[in-house]
């Protein structure tokens, strides 16, 4: 009886030894694919985690995208396997124009991955925030900046509002967790597109710190995602 059980155990051990080998242990993806959104070499600044993109790869059962999003510097970074992917920014995402295909859907870009790859995505933003000067005197933060209308004509859009946000951390946007104070001007209140000024008081900071981060944001009419100026750390 005892030897029987022993034999069974040995057989089981061998079986598990064989089955646990190959199939269960997939290699983790380790090819880095990263880059940023640019317009003529200039970075496009966004709100953290609000503009998404999708990577599609066919040939593996059901067709579903790998979803991810850009950070507030307009950068993305993914870890993948080598292969052929299609990169697409879904309709209605981002403060920029994305090419359409003949069916009126967002067009995709073909990516061949064969080792690590850095790849900048060229888009045309509706507006750019330029020549931003952010300064502080310890009590308030003021911003002077220009707007440049990049897309004009029939496809051009108007300014809905411009914002100045400040936050204690480097995540600065309209999200309630990403600003401690803000001020804004509506599109109708703007005198033009250059030399625009905004100013916001710094509230009491607890625990106190001698710096804030600030950014200027632009909300475009009919576009959900905002475009931002580069982030600046202001010490006082």
């Amino acid at each position, binding site marked *: 009886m005892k030897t029987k059980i022993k034999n069974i155990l040995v057989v089981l051990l061998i079986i598990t030894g064989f089955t646990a080998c190959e199939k269960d242990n997939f290699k983790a993806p380790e090819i880095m694919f990263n880059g940023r959104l640019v317009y003529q070499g200039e970075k496009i600044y966004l709100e953290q985690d609000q503009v998404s993109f999708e990577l599609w790869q066919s040939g593996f059962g059901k067709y*579903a995208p790998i979803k991810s999003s850009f950070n507030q510097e307009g950068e993305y970074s993914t870890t993948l396997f080598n292969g052929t992917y299609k990169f697409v920014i879904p309709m*209605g995402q981002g403060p920029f124009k994305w090419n359409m295909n003949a069916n009126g859907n967002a067009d995709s870009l073909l990516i061949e991955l064969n080792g690590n790859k850095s790849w900048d995505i060229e888009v045309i933003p509706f507006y750019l925030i330029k020549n931003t000067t952010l300064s502080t005197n310890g009590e308030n933060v003021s911003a002077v900046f220009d707007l440049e209308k990049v897309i004009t004509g029939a496809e051009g859009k108007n300014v809905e509002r411009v914002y100045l946000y400040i936050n204690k951390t480097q995540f600065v946007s309209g999200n*309630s967790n990403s600003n401690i104070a803000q001020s804004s001007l509506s599109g109708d209140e703007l005198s033009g597109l250059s030399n625009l000024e905004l100013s916001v008081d710094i509230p009491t900071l607890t625990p106190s710190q001698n710096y804030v981060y600030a950014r200027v944001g632009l909300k475009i009419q009919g576009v*959900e995602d905002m475009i931002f100026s580069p982030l600046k750390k202001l010490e006082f």
Partner: protein
Amino acid sequence: MKRIYICILLMLSLNWACKKDSEFLDRKPKQVLTEEQVFGDEKQVLSLLADLYNRYVDFATPENWSSMSDFNEAFWSEAGRYGDFQNSGWGYGNWAIWDYGYIRELNLFIDKAAKNTTLDAELMKRMQAEARFIRASYYFELVKRMGGVPLILEPLTYDFSGDATYLQNPREKESAIYDFIIKEAEEIKPLLPKDVNTKSRATAAAALAMQSRAALYAASIAKYGYKTPQVSLSGGEVGIDAALSNEYYAIALKSAQEIISGSVGSYALYLKKPDNLSENFASLFYDKNGNNESIFIEDYKLQSGKVHGFTISNQPRYGAEEEEGGRINPSLNLAQSFEKLDNTFAPFETNTSTGEYVYYDNQTDIFAGRDARLAGTIILPGTTFKGRTVDIWAGYQLADGSIITGDDRGQQKTLPGKSLPEQVVGLDGPINGYEFTAQTGFYIRKYLDPAAGSGQRGVQSEVPFLRYRYAEVLLNAAEAAFELGDANTAATYMNEVRARAGLTTPLNSSQITFDRIVHERRAELAFEGHYYFDLKRWRIAHEVFNGANISKTEIVKNIGSSTKISTQPYGIWPYKIYAPGTPNDGKWIYKVVLPDRVTGADRFQLGNYYSEINNTILSNNPKIVKNPNQ
């Protein structure tokens, strides 16, 4: 001995084997009913239909308390749910439904009922109409959440050929689904009974109420779609042509008026307790005896297995029948939106214009002189439930402005100048982060069951859920008439609803505005699953939930504006004054507070307007297009 057993066994087996082989192999299954058996017996067909009714999908249901109270109309006083107030909005996939299995079974039922010849023809006609009503209701639920969907009206069957493409249908236009619902309602109306006492099965009035609501939704999507041009698809699967809005509004008005005229049954506003309109409003939801306001309900029955625990989850915690309750805490955002009796909007008066506290003799005084629906919808501090006064107060305020309070329900401390400890905080809270206490200062009253035992897990509640009721029909008519430019008619219908709430000064036609209509629906239909769809169809959800924090000064401003932001649920806490020897001793003051577990602010993204169609569906059927902005 052994031999005898063997003999017996042998004889038994011989007996068994005696049956003819054909009989043996051709026995009827005992656990499965065949189609002929079901469709040959009225009771069986009825139970089949009952199952289809039972699977009716509601956005809000008392079986799931949180489904009735999202969107910052309430704070959720349950330890596991604070996260919903610490994030910044809702996922794209929230609220998505896609149950084509249900639709197939409805289609099968309709198909079989139509071909049936054994049962009474009249009965079959009615049941067929009922199944069509349920099917239209489900398509309505689908179109509200997902936009246009494939419209399948035949039971589809796979032929196992390996190629399923013939089963793949593209999405219809959003307007086509609404047209289908309106047309179905029109066709089944004459086949359904005109009986005011039939509540949990479809009636002519239920069909009309559905038609009116569907037409109103379609109309407002057409009219207000311009506010969010991005929320549309080029194929019309999302978004409705603006030119169609008047046509839909006219249908909404016509079908509502057909109910109002009494031609499908004598429905009326519930008014059994005219002396106490708040009590009257609360009993409208639990009174099942000759309630002429409810049109179509999800009914429950004690000791039948079909009961729900809404009262258990939400009963006032102090004196509750179980060690739980108090989950839904209506927010100040909602509470203060109830008007004063002179038809004006005003915040609760916590401070005078010079910033002094206002001292109240009684705890309930601050809420006096308002819309009766306030106390009918919300349990206010100092009011009663099941004969017991709720004990909601946040602590003592001393003459120097300092606060003495506790961090446990009804905690005792010694007040200055006294020798014995006494209670310094209510047994119902409010205590920040203490689950089941009234963390906004309020409990919910709507749909709470006052019957003894309703708060016990072993008994539960049989309060029905009102899917369609007469007051909504009146408000549908008012809104449709207003949008069609007939403010007089709109005022008449709206004043009827308002008079029942104690707002007896009628509004005249010039006072009927879009904001008024938005407000009236919010006040009358709070916690009934309308708020979300209303904000969606008016395309103002992204403005109301814009992701910005609300400050204490901002929350009490602009009450009554349709786009007042409501990203965080506020509360209002009562404090007792302890200042012996001064005139204010023992009086009450109120403070506006943000419950400290609320740290996020909600943002309704454009991609939230229509729920995400998941990848499995998209992958199975390449003809389906994605919803916009996701």
